[in-house]
């Protein structure tokens, strides 16, 4: 998708800004999210003639690389750490879990490796397909699928039997693309 004009780039920017902002907010310090988003789109502008037809995974990958580069000066990292909502929200997710089950889920999440968290987040929070998530991480689709399956198993094992999925209560906007 070669973008030749300001108008074409602006349309792409407006179509994906919110998703990129959310992607970065899940990972970067809140005070710096706007700058990471800005740098991501600045990079996209410079590469506008080389963008893929679906630029969303490319934008996520670019933002992720910026955040990875940030931490490499301090310690080598292969995955970007994720933030979590510390408290329950008053939305469609709220009735899905008891407070106790939520704490169990939070503990299970925190017990996962950063890599497992990242794999699960791309699947659930970003709602990416396996192919798109693989593009973000720079691995093959098969490798991502395998890692996702393992991450799901580890999450379930750590959460224990107290955290159960009530499919009847899962809101429609829970992303589970694969």
């Amino acid at each position: 998708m070669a973008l030749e004009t300001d108008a074409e780039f602006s349309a792409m920017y407006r179509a994906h800004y919110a998703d990129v902002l959310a992607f970065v907010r899940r990972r970067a310090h809140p005070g710096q999210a706007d700058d990471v988003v800005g740098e991501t789109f600045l990079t996209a502008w410079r590469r506008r003639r080389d963008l893929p037809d679906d630029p969303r995974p490319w934008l996520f990958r670019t933002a992720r690389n910026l955040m990875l580069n940030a931490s490499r000066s301090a310690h080598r990292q292969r995955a970007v750490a994720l933030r979590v909502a510390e408290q329950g929200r008053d939305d469609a997710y709220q009735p899905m879990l008891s407070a106790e089950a939520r704490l169990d889920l939070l503990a299970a999440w925190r017990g996962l490796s950063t890599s497992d968290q990242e794999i699960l987040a791309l699947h659930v929070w970003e709602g990416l397909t396996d192919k798109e998530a693989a593009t973000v991480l720079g691995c093959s689709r098969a490798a991502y699928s395998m890692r996702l399956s393992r991450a799901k198993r580890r999450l379930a094992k750590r959460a224990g039997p107290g955290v159960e999925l009530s499919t009847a209560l899962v809101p429609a906007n829970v992303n589970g693309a694969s």
Partner: protein
Amino acid sequence: MNRDISPLLGVLDPAPPRALTVDEQARQEQLLSSVLADARVVRRRPVRRIALAGALAVGAAAAVVVAPVAYHMIKGGGGPLSSTAISSWTGNPVRLAASSTDSTAQQFCEKNATGNPNATGPFTVSNADLRGEVTSMVLTRGKDITLCMVGTDGEGFTMAVDPIGKIAPKDITLDTAGSHGDGDSAFSYVEGFAGADVKSISVHDGSRTADALVDGGRWTVWWPGTSDFTGTVTVTTTDGNSHSVRIDSLFH
């Protein structure tokens, strides 16, 4: 074990799907203008530090070089403010009356104010203070609100901030925060909103304590050095009570 509970992770999503607020839409458009403008202008960019979520989790700051597009870089150097200006910092700000702000500083801030470039009319100045050689102020014109910091040497920066939101009398919120520059040119800042009963706010970050300027429901403060914002904010209300919270707990 075959059960898949991963869909439940939606409850932990720190940025759940929602429409952008009006203010976020304004920032979206401002950022787009900055990207398009920055892409055309080759100029020196400052080094900027970014603290990541992972760095916060392990209590260590991480450094990164990211070209800023969300604020206006005025001059070259290690950051928007010179090391000389930053070294003159004082923990207690000298409150300036809107009419007594340094005219050169105010000219800089008005010239580089964010928002509609075609807007006309006078600016309203609030949260004006002086720490050493650095003047900080908030300019409002119409719907455009700008936080500005500038040294007596003419180096500084501006950034868009939000209008004051609804807030309980004894509460404070954080609107924006960040760190700019590197080494001796590094500084950190916080800007937020304060309820009507908030008398004073102090930020404790490492060995430094910085008293914020509380003015008309908005508080502003800055201090030398980068920050991962794991320090504390102490809020004192008009009834004499005080309480402290971590800075990063104010991020939402």
